[in-house]
């Protein structure tokens, strides 16, 4: 244990048990958290990150028990106290604060925000109600809550996601803890909100001299926040060192692979990690990562569990750094695939889709007999083109209308205004007013891949039937059975699945495999256009890379056109040829990917880009933070939808809706587009080859 450690975990082992068996969830976890520093725990889902946090506070579910190990905090071994001991209860909340994902569910909706903050304060400090209320008000001020005095009496459902997380932070900080555990605190938030919250946490840490244990799956966030990094895999610490050590010169093959599988800029095939994280019941003998490791030595790695050994300034649990180091040659990088094509030289085919002023307004009936109708303008006046072989990304934060737009194109919603021209077989026709029979034809050509690979597959059908469904429902009637089988098996192979598995039901596949099934289903009728709605956002980084590679390969081999809907600019940067930025139902800017990334023309694009985090780009421009929240789509402002939050807004912006104009290759809807000099991602800051970016 280091002398400056505020918290020290030593040999912590936690297991789950049910009636049938016991499975080890945390194995021998140990690291120190120094005073006033931030340690980030990083890993994919199911690696035991949150469980570590809960074990420290001893708020585990009843089926989890601490088998051995110590959690030393300010001289007390928390692992050795009774769960009900008063000492532990005083430390919970008093000395260690906790914030986590999904602030809406983490707060009670039955009590006001003030009540819940005051409760935390009064639990640990001997103050009167009045004093506690004042303290709660100060706290809301401190976390940057707008109108704190009013918000004190608000309920959680009246606050935006960012505001709810501010409340969580205020509550955790109330009793002046010396340690804050932040468990994926920004994962559920939009990027621009994430940026603001991360700023806030850093500010508070500096002003209060707190330590932070920051748990995240996002390596960009790690590089923004951490002093030291703990990499976990299947409940074990596999690497531990300073940020520079771990992110710049990663040692463990898992850390390397994780960094390498991040989406890079510009049409690369990404490196991937084969397979997925096994379940706890299937923990491999020997090194937990061995089955997925490119360097694993049979006879050693799959038999003997490596010890955590020192290597330079870091600790790493890998045989390649232990006594058997001579058997390994880690200098062999997983081969970096060629840049498939450069964007400049890319020639796209004919225009295939042309959206002309498409709008979608939902009507919501309210009142006892539905007498009141509220209009929700989800998508307004969208015009864009898609060419054959091209990927057009639509980016925007939640509620920006990007999903509605995608679903309107495929006909899941009927457009309220505008036309969607679809060019096929020499015909160019509006598909918004087709008959049901005609739609069935068009649907063969324009297909969709859904976000959630769990809910988009019918649990009652086998993978085979799911992929065969569009063929069986073909307007011309189903193909003969042998042809069908051949075709479906071909599709399985095309998306990298074993046709042997086609008889299984969706529940037997992993998330990435399900998404492959979803892609195979989309490809079945030989489509021309695929609308992919956040196809990788529910997947872990390593699996995400696999699916992105698949999409790239399919595009180049089949000449598909994609409309790729995403909130993740890193993914977009790696896949898209052109990008449309949406805000509050409108496209505010549309241009080539490099153009938008490097020199955005719209203030919102600029703000969005400034919030992007990658391990190579941790220095965000903090002056570009967006205040407030996006407008309510049922009462949009009269002028520019972005004016309220725009740093450059003038009077004209609040009165007039800006026209979409062409400005040196950018389509941009801003009154001041010509006059503004905006910042984008500077090219040199983007890692061209990874690992080993310089920050």
């Amino acid at each position, binding site marked *: 244990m280091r002398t400056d450690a505020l918290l020290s975990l030593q040999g912590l082992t936690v297991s789950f048990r049910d009636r049938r068996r016991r499975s080890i969830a945390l194995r021998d976890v140990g690291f120190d958290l120094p005073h006033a520093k931030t340690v980030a725990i990083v890993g994919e889902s199911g690696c035991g990150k949150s469980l570590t946090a809960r074990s420290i*506070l001893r708020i585990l579910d009843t089926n989890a028990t601490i088998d051995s190990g110590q959690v030393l905090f300010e001289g007390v071994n928390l692992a050795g106290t009774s769960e009900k001991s008063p000492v532990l209860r005083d430390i919970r909340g008093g000395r260690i604060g*906790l914030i986590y994902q999904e602030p809406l569910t983490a707060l009670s909706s039955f009590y006001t925000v003030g009540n819940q903050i005051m409760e935390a304060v009064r639990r640990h400090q001997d103050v009167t109600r009045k004093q506690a209320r004042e303290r709660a008000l100060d706290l809301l001020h401190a976390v940057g809550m707008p109108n704190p005095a009013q918000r004190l009496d608000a*309920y959680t459902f009246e606050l935006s996601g960012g505001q709810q997380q501010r409340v969580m932070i205020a509550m955790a900080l109330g009793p002046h803890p010396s340690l804050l555990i932040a468990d994926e605190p920004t994962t559920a938030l939009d990027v621009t909100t994430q940026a603001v919250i991360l700023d806030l946490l850093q500010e508070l840490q500096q002003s209060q001299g707190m330590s932070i244990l920051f748990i995240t799956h996002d390596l960009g966030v790690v590089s923004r926040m951490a002093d030291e990094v703990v990499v976990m895999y299947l409940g074990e610490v596999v690497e531990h060192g300073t940020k520079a050590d771990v992110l710049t010169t990663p040692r463990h093959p898992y850390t390397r692979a994780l960094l390498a599988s991040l989406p890079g800029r510009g049409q690369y095939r990404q490196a991937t990690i084969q397979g997925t994280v096994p379940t706890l019941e299937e923990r491999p003998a020997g090194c937990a990562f061995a089955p997925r490791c490119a360097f694993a030595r049979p006879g050693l790695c799959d038999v003997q569990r490596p010890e955590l050994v020192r290597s330079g300034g870091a600790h790493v649990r890998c045989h390649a750094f232990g006594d058997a180091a001579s058997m390994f040659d880690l200098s062999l990088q997983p081969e970096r695939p060629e840049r498939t094509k450069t964007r400049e030289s890319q020639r796209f085919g004919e225009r295939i889709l042309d959206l002309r002023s498409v709008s979608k307004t939902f009507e919501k009936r309210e009142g006892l007999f539905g007498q009141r109708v509220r209009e929700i303008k989800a998508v307004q006046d969208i015009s864009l083109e898609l060419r054959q072989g091209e990927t057009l990304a639509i980016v925007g934060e939640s509620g920006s209308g990007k999903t509605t737009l995608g679903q309107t194109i495929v006909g899941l919603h009927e457009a309220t205004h505008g036309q969607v021209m679809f060019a096929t077989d020499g015909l160019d026709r509006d598909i918004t007013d087709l008959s049901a029979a005609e739609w069935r034809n068009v649907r063969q050509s324009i297909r969709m891949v859904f976000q959630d690979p769990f809910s988009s597959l019918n649990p009652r059908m086998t993978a085979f039937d799911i992929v065969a469904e569009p063929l069986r429902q073909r307007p011309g009637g189903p193909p003969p059975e042998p042809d069908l089988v051949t075709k479906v098996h071909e599709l399985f192979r095309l998306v990298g699945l074993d046709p042997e598995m086609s008889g299984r039901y969706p529940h037997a596949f992993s998330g990435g495999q399900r998404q492959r099934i979803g892609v195979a289903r989309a490809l079945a009728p030989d489509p021309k256009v695929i609308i992919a709605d956040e196809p990788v956002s529910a997947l872990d980084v390593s699996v995400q890379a696999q699916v992105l590679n698949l999409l790239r390969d399919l595009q180049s081999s089949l000449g598909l056109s994609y409309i790729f809907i995403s909130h993740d600019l890193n993914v977009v940067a790696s896949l898209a040829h052109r990008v449309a930025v949406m805000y509050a139902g409108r496209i505010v800017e549309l241009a080539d990917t490099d153009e938008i990334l490097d020199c955005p023309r719209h203030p919102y694009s600029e703000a969005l880009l400034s919030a992007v985090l990658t391990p190579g780009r941790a220095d965000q421009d903090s002056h570009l933070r967006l205040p407030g929240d996006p407008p309510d789509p049922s009462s949009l402002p009269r002028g520019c939808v972005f004016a309220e939050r725009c740093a450059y807004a003038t009077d004209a912006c609040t009165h007039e809706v800006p026209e979409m104009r062409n400005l040196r290759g950018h389509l941009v809807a801003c009154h001041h587009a010509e006059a503004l000099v905006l910042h984008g991602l500077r090219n040199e800051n983007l890692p061209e080859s990874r690992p080993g970016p310089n920050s």
Partner: protein
Amino acid sequence: MARFLARRLVLMLLTVVAISVISFFIIILPPGDFVDRLVQEANQYGENLEPHEIEDLRRNYGLDRSAVEQYFVWVRNILLRGDFGYSFGWDLPVSELIGQRLGLTALLSVVTLLFVWIVAIPVGIYAAVRKYSLGDYVFTFLGFIGLAIPNFLLALVLLYISFRYFGQSVGGLFSPEYVNAPWTLARFADLLSHLWIPVIVLGTAGTAEIIRKIRANLLDELHRPYVLTARAKGLGETHLLLKYPVRHSLNPFVSELNDLFVKIVSGETIVAVVLGLQTTGPLLLEALKEEDLYLASTLIMFLSFLAVLGTLVSDLLLMLLDPKIRRQAASQEMM
């Protein structure tokens, strides 16, 4: 808030109108009326009524007019004179017959409701918190039994047991000497001493159901993130339990309070018959068998009205207790 209330009241008024229609036409539309019944009786005594005599009888009772006409006359008299009609069978104005009985039905229903809540909430919480304990199993078992026994059967069994082992009849709401006595403190005390049997009979099924539901709801809530938050704040388990998950798990029951109340009012009819209570149940049954038009209609209307009143109360309670609904009500005000 006032507007919210006003809307609820308007809705209730509409409901009452619909109820009056249903109550009346359920009785009048099926073939056969009170006069037919009289003719039948007369036949049994060997008397034969002449057709014109039957006509006269019909006219006297007002049964010669069309159903719709009779309905409007009935409603007009209620609205203008508070006159609910005349009971053919009892030869008395309906309002005189039902006044006290209706009050007793309401009292019995409300007391039963309270009984259900007072028993079910703590037991439900206990069963959830001590999941799979002996107590949990016992309550679960009793709960199943409670759900499976029809009210009237439970009443019969209790009657039998008290007769067999205590040698007394426990029927009725009053001891014989108080049945027709004016209201005094002693009569009230006598009422209370009789009330518990019907309360238990009426409340058992509801109690069993609510225990099961509270247990299931609370088990869901116990693992919600906000509970973790509260625990991470360092709150004590009991305090935490009552303030957060229990509060969350009970909220849905405020709206179910109404369903429960409807069931109690509904079940009261049968239990009252078995236990010989001086409430609306036996009167209604009698009236229905005798085709006593106005008495039956008025009773059904009032029982339904009682249930609708329960809806109103539970709506208001929900508004008081659920911040989301409270805020919705407040925002309707603004619009």
